[in-house]
């Protein structure tokens, strides 16, 4: 596929968004107004800018990444617009800011390539851990950078200086930093981790010394769970860590011990934390405690059921009945208004995007880039799976965003940076 075909598809995605906004307007009794044009322009400016930056600084990058992400962003934006127009106009700003960040990253590494990311891995590890711990800052101290709690989870940092208030969810960026660190660390140590062992009974285990940094990463993910009550980020980071360890070494023992640690952690969390128990009981039978723990998931199920095969049509359903519909539950809104057709299309698009990411990884020769692309793709796929499985009651709800579709600046920025990294890897590997 050529760059020009990619550009055409991006125009198509912007048209999908504009068309969707027009349908929502019509369904809600408004005429076609400036929102339609504005949406078209902003989505086109965002992905167009990204596209031009790739043409400029990573011309050999895969042409499949942006169109798939743009389609998801467009569908997500239409649902956010349908649910809350105030959030939608903010989302347009987040899109532009996320694009600037992704373009800046491509610009910054245009000469050096991804090598600096590899070189300064401990800086990344440290900053990642710091980022994860930042929300634990006091909420009311003199320094303008403060922790911030929202709906029971301590996931936010807030920069408040005078009238300026910026909120940010560092957990979203942490997955990029963790993937980068692990790719760098493991590509160097993978030989050692895979081979150098000492006999312990009949099993062969790696040296404890070499595992130390990994244990730190693991501990950090549990700090996230315990102090910030963020099930989703904690599970995502831990699974990413195990998956990359497995990818680097090919040793299933890491999967098994990871699975064991996860199981032990999950049971402990369930026994100890009331908010985990609430999630689990809401999952097992949302209708038993309909008014309280089961309410949100029950509303989500009503939305999916009401959507049926072909959906109610954009703007014609009632997904606004679901608490947090624009963020965690955006997929339920798609399921209701676009029906099974829409929800399967969205899942398939994610599957394609993840496939493109793994394709880049598999075709990479350099082990750092291979692990980086593999880790990022895995994180993207797992995050998508966890939140969709959560809102459809396949798994307990973990409360993370749906990449590209959920409302939120932190999430968009993190996933745009993820796209930029994948694009850069594919450019360097000429995939």
């Amino acid at each position: 596929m050529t760059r020009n075909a990619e550009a055409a598809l991006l125009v198509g995605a912007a048209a999908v968004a504009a068309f969707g906004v027009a349908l929502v307007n019509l369904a809600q009794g408004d005429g076609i107004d400036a929102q339609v044009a504005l949406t078209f322009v902003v989505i086109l400016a965002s992905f167009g800018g990204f596209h031009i930056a790739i043409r400029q600084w990573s011309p050999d990058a895969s042409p499949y990444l942006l169109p798939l992400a743009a389609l998801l962003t467009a569908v997500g934006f239409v649902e956010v617009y349908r649910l809350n127009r105030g959030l939608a106009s903010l989302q347009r700003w987040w899109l532009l800011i996320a694009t600037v960040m992704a373009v800046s990253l491509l610009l910054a590494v245009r000469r050096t390539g991804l090598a600096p990311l590899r070189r300064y891995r401990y800086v990344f590890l440290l900053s990642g851990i710091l980022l994860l711990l930042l929300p634990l800052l006091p909420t009311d101290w003199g320094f303008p950078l403060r922790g911030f709690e929202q709906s029971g989870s301590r996931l936010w940092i807030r920069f408040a200086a005078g009238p300026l208030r910026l909120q940010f969810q560092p957990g979203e960026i942490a997955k990029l930093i963790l993937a980068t660190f692990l790719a760098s660390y493991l590509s160097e140590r993978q030989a050692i981790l895979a081979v150098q062992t000492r006999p312990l009974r009949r099993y062969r285990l790696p040296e404890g010394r070499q595992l130390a940094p990994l244990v730190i990463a693991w501990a950090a993910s549990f700090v996230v769970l315990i102090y910030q009550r963020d099930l989703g980020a904690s599970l995502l980071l831990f699974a990413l860590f195990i998956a990359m360890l497995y990818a680097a070494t090919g040793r299933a023992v890491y999967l098994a011990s990871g699975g064991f640690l996860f199981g032990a952690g999950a049971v402990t969390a369930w026994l100890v934390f009331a908010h985990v128990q609430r999630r689990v009981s809401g999952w097992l039978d949302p209708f038993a405690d309909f008014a309280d723990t089961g309410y949100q998931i029950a509303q989500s199920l009503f939305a999916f059921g009401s959507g049926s095969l072909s959906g109610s049509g954009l703007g014609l359903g009632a997904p606004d009945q679901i608490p947090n519909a624009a963020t965690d539950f955006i997929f339920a809104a798609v399921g209701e208004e676009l029906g099974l057709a829409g929800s399967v299309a969205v899942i398939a698009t994610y599957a394609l995007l993840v496939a493109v990411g793994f394709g880049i990884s598999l075709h990479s020769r350099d082990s750092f880039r291979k692990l980086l692309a593999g880790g990022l793709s895995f994180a993207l796929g797992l995050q998508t799976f966890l939140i969709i499985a959560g809102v459809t009651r396949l798994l307990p709800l973990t409360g993370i965003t749906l990449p590209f579709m959920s409302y939120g600046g932190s999430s968009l920025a993190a996933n745009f940076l993820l796209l930029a990294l994948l694009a850069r890897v594919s450019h360097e590997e000429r995939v």
Partner: protein
Amino acid sequence: MNQPLRRLAAALFVAFALLILDVTYLQVIAGPRYRDDDRNPRVVASRTGKERGLILSADEQVLAQSIADPDDPQRFTRSYPEGELYAHLVGFSSVNFGDDGLELVYADKLRSKRDLTISDLLSALLGGDQRPKSIQLTIDHGLQQVAYTALGDQRGSVVAFRPDTGEVLAMVSKPSFDPNLFLSGEAIATRESLLTDPAEPLANRSTNRTYPPGSTFKVVVTAAAIELGAAGPDTLLPDPAELVLPGTVEVIRNFDRGVCADGTEVTLQTAFRRSCNTVFGFLGLQLGAEALTLEAEAFGFNQDTPFEIPVLNSFFPQPSEFTNDLPALAQSAIGQRDVRTTPFEMALVAAAIANDGIIMEPMLVSHIFDTDGQVVSETEPKLLQRAVSPSTAAIISDLMERVVASGTGTRATVPNVRVAGKTGTAETGVGPPHVWFIGFAPVEQPTIALAVLVESGGEAGENATGGSVAAPIAQEILAYWVQSNG
């Protein structure tokens, strides 16, 4: 490194495949279950905001209407202009709690057929009218207001029928509530406070609460006696101050703890007029359980009464239950012990006497009409069952007239109108008595029969009697009715 990466990718693709199966199950297989769940706000929303038909009183007072939103003529808000006055009858159509009362029973007529359900679509194709239908009640708005006001702040009920048609003329239950609150933003809080209110404003005392009928039940016992030929108005019966119940040392006493007449013998007529418990306890024992149960059932006890809104069955025990318990039989004959009835049923008893012994099927909706005012269906008066023969009815009518003329019910007297009635003061065992008045007027050609119940003595408390508390309420209602109907 590629093999583990491939496996990770494969695991994710399996996970995505699971998601597709999952949404397919959720949206197609289990979908209808979730879609039609009563708790699904879409189900409720599909009913609300739509236009519903009018509910009118017999004299065209609007009791429920849908008002179009000035900003969006396709959206309607339901309103109940008469609020508390008709809450238990008309009910409500609420987003949060669904429908109730006539709004529930006639939901299918009242709602518009534009929901594009398969059956609606079919009826549209066949040229059916999609617009909502309206219903007109048999209730007389003026009478309903008088009854509501007459009860005052006391807990209780008034039910009034037109005896020869079975039309409900008034039906009031107090305390009441404002159904408009169920449509407001405070619906949930309103419902909570109504549910926990000890006065139970949500209960429809007319049809959904049963009470011991007390002495009003003597109408049924007397009917049994006359029908069997066991006694007539002039039959002399023993007149002790205390009736010792068979096999016990317990006694039945008269209300004033005295004798009924002179302490020797008394006519049935006098005993009825003065509502003497000792005489009726004795009469009940003489007639036997079989006769009492049969007569109670002839008046509608122990059976479902067809009516637009659900009615709790009134209860009189089966004869077998008295075989080894004659004291219970004597107490049942004065409307105590396990006998339970609704104000609705006691109004039917009065209506039966007023209508030559025939109970007409009660009706609340006189007709249904469409948006053009064309009558779609009309309720015809229907005979439900015969309670007593015309001659028995005439005798009891005369006895009841004497109750109002010179007995326990004198406070129901309406000047220049012949009023018949029977009072009741039912002991509850705990707290003040429930007091009753049942009756009809004018005796020569009755146009109204009613039952008045005041719970726990009302404002009079322990001192309340049917004659002092319920009869004056009946008097106001009967006076208004007879005056406004010539």
